[in-house]
């Protein structure tokens, strides 16, 4: 879902950059305030895992593929704000080093694939923790549903950005984007649940929203 240069109007790109910069800035503040020494490597580990798994495109339907985004997983491990920071590290590297995702679209890509999913899943997990404490199955179910929602919400935002930019009518792009991303979201949910489950079995103390 990496938007390349040329798809967005400059005004739309600029408006999307505002919440992206805000969330990353706040993520830096939270990292400086809340991160305990033991968890410092976890920002690097999460960025590395998200980057690597994003490379693993899986086939969805009729000659189309999808890949993991990872904002939900990052939010579960690090909390929503540091997740925004980690996602921006991944997306900035992909754009500048791998020319994957436009430089002018970086704010939109951080917003669509990072901020939206991190805040959505982070919020849902905090809610789940209050309503269903200490229930591993319920915790994983909420993680999966949240991961799916994060992908669909990102595709929704991306569609609106393209339509407002005048690139493609909303009535054309929205059903097409949602149609493919409801499937890609299933892959996101499976990977997120598998990763969270593996971490809970090995190092449950690493999972931020459980701590």
């Amino acid at each position, binding site marked *: 879902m990496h938007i390349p240069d040329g798809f967005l109007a400059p005004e739309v790109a600029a408006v999307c950059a505002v919440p992206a910069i805000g969330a990353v800035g706040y993520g830096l503040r939270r990292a400086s305030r809340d991160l305990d020494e033991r968890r410092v490597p976890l*920002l690097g580990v999460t960025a590395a895992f998200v980057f*690597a798994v994003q490379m693993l495109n899986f086939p969805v339907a009729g000659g189309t593929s999808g890949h993991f985004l990872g904002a939900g997983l990052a939010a579960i491990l690090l909390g929503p704000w540091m997740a925004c920071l980690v996602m921006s590290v991944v997306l900035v590297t992909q754009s500048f*080093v791998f*020319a994957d995702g436009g430089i002018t679209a970086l704010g939109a890509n951080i917003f669509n694939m990072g901020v939206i999913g991190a805040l959505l899943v982070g919020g849902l997990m905090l809610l789940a923790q209050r309503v269903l404490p200490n229930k591993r199955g319920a915790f994983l179910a909420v993680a999966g549903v949240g991961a799916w929602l994060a992908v669909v919400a990102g*595709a929704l935002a991306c569609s609106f950005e393209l339509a407002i930019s005048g690139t493609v009518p909303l009535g054309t792009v929205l059903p097409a984007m949602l149609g493919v991303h409801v499937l890609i979201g299933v892959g996101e949910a499976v990977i997120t649940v598998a990763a969270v489950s593996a971490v809970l079995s090995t190092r449950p103390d690493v999972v931020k929203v459980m701590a």
Partner: protein
Amino acid sequence: MKWFTILAVALAVGLATAVSPIASSAPDGLTRVAADKGFAARESQPRTPLIGYGALLGGFAGTLIVFAAGYGIARVVRHERTA
């Protein structure tokens, strides 16, 4: 935490180098929609990547770059607090 870090980064490097060659090369959701709905040509002249994902080096280098960046940022902002 040290062993968790080493194992997790090794897993990430393994996925990015050994598994990524068998990943689907079909266009992803947005790329496919752009082609189907006729706005793919709006993309600006594609930039040449410094490193290609296709190169074996790509997944290896990229994974280590983001690990170092994430770790480095966390280390620096924490240091600022305690300094």
